[in-house]
């Protein structure tokens, strides 16, 4: 048992030492401020997205209808029945799904940036996008039938495709018990490229499949009511929990791997858990929402700039911020050229390009 000899300090000065020692912990006030602001942003975004749409439903009507559903109290004004359908069967599920998708992509993006120690890492890095695209395209082109649970084949196929591809990447990259980061990256690029090439080939064989597959990849809300939300939720909860549990280890991992091992971190297990958790979350939301880009990059970087690099805070903040961001992006996508809807990925990309320029200029002061 080691003897921790602290310098003997007189009692009066001891409080001063303790106070200063406490300052080592992340400042609660600063942390709280940012957390509150992010949560507020999410609530405002959700509110706006529910109220605004290609069909104008006044906020009063929204409140009245929600109250009516929850409490059974009929409102004084009789609103057109279309309002209720739009609100409860289209808009609320849509906003919720966008929130979950944004949360998953941002949290997974932050994890990958930490795991690969690379600011350009995004949730699609190790083959999720390519695998999901292949799965979805196969389902669309070969018209795989609807399965039980009333789900169409596309989300299931996309999900399975993503998991299989990442599984293949991880297996290829494992050397002994460990998964070297550079090897994983290369395997991800190689296997991902193969899957993408195969996808393109299949797409070109069928013009109808080409159009539908392209639509799928553009990403966005594909309908389905509350089912996608309920299906995605468990994956999100489990994935976020696993990532958050390993957030402190992820901090230590930012030193090189050897130092992390010398500090007692089980580096191989942490890497595997993070890859699996992030992949599960990403695959689940991509299955229903297509390939929405930039969320996993913009949101974690912005929050890192504002709140520091500590992953214990960055992961949850990214989730909340990602939810808000994607809700807003989807709102823009469905209102700016109504009744035509833009693909959400286009809106996030338009937001992303200037962001990157901004980030490059800010990197003078390194934030990683």
């Amino acid at each position, binding site marked *: 048992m080691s003897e921790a000899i602290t310098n003997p300090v007189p009692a009066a000065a001891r409080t001063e030492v303790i106070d200063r020692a406490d300052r080592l912990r992340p400042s609660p006030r600063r942390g709280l401020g940012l957390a509150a602001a992010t949560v507020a942003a999410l609530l405002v975004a959700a509110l706006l997205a529910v109220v605004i*749409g290609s069909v104008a439903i006044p906020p009063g009507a929204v409140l009245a209808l929600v109250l009516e559903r*929850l409490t059974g109290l009929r409102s004084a004004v009789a609103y057109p029945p279309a309002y209720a359908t739009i609100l409860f069967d289209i808009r609320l599920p849509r906003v919720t799904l966008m929130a979950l998708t944004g949360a998953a992509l941002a949290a997974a993006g932050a994890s990958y940036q930490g795991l690969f120690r690379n600011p350009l890492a995004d949730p699609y890095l190790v083959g999720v996008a390519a695998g999901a695209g292949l799965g979805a395209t196969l389902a669309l082109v070969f018209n795989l039938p609807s399965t039980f649970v009333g789900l169409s084949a*596309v989300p299931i196929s996309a999900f399975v495709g993503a998991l299989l591809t990442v599984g293949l990447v991880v297996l290829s990259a494992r050397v002994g018990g460990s998964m070297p980061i550079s090897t994983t990256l290369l395997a991800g690029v190689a296997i991902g490229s193969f899957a993408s090439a195969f996808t393109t080939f299949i797409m070109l064989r069928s013009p109808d499949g080409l159009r539908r597959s392209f639509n799928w990849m553009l990403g966005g809300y594909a309908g389905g*009511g509350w089912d996608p939300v309920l299906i995605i939720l468990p994956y999100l909860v489990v994935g976020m929990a696993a990532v958050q549990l390993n957030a402190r280890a992820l901090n230590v991992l930012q030193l090189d791997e050897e130092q992390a091992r010398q500090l007692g971190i089980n580096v191989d297990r942490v890497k595997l858990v993070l890859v699996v958790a992030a992949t599960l979350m990403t695959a689940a939301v991509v299955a229903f929402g*297509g390939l929405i880009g930039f969320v996993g990059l913009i949101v974690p970087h912005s929050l890192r700039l504002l709140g520091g690099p500590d992953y214990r805070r960055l992961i949850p903040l990214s989730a909340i911020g990602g939810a808000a961001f994607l809700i807003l992006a989807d709102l823009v996508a*469905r209102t700016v050229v109504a*009744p035509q809807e833009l693909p959400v990925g286009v809106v996030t990309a338009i937001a992303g390009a200037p962001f990157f320029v901004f980030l490059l200029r800010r990197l003078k002061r390194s934030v990683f």
Partner: protein
Amino acid sequence: MLRQPRHWMMTFALAACLVLAGCASPATVALTGTPVPPATVTAPAATQAAPAATAAAPVTATTAASTSTAAPTATLPPPTATTAATTAASGPITLTDSLGRVVTLAAPAQHVVTLAPSNTEILYALGAGSVLAGRDDFSDYPPEVTQVPSIGNESPHVNAEAIVALHPDLVLAAGITSPDDVAQLAKLGLTVYATSNAANLDDIYKDIQAVGVLVGKMDAASKLVASMQDQVAAVKAKTASVTTHPVVYYELDATDPSKPWTAGPGSFVDQLITLSGGTNAGDIAKDQYAQISLEQLVSQNPDIIVLGSATFGGQTPAMVAARPGWQSIKAVKNNMVFAFDDNLVSRPGPRIIVGLEKLAALIHPELFK
């Protein structure tokens, strides 16, 4: 507060429990609600002979389901005779659409949203343009259609909100509408009928008949189909006796002039060219929608080039003449390159006959003035 991982963990766990409990609780059940119930069939056996296609067709009309006898399927009366069917202005309607879905309406539709230009044109050709409440962005014929509200186009997904807001009693999806979109709209309580992914003229006739039933214009539908068949027969009669079958190259897309896209064997354009007494240069391809290399095209040496690519690609005969390597083609040398409205042959609706006649006039101008 919330500094320690365990605090975050507990917060997550709590949130997860709340969500899961909420999902199970009546509150959320009430919040998610049930979709508006679809327009149901109320009754009973109408004995009118709803005009129907032959049993093998994807569209089968049956009388209302409450009868215990097997649904009688009347065959389509021969085109020259008028049907004895009543112009059913009332009474329940049940059809099976091209996706195999059973579609029921209490009465002929009065408020229709179309998701493709072909169905829009069918409605107007049946004289039912007044029931159109909403249309997709690509619908542009007849010109007055642009006054009807648009619900966007279907890329990347159909705009369910806009459609629901128009509260249609019928949504006419088309073969190009994704089945997932159809399912989504049905789930919202809308009545959706999907016309077929027409592969030939017979499919189009069946779709027209089906739309006729749905909007209560069966007479007009039969007349329209009859007149279309007459026109086709007329073209066939004239081309029956031709001795030459000019090679025709129909261009769909020429973004890459060394490998343009053309209509392959079995496609609509291919069928129309054959009906017009021509030979499709694209029939050496393997798919209905295929690329043909310039070399193959040169060896086919088409007599006539029809630029469907004029509509969506802005190609002109002058541009074709300027393409490197194209000058040796007969059609280019003889100035037999024509711009063409691709919409006439790509929309499986009544105007396909117009497209046929125009193609025939290009291929055998001596027969068709």
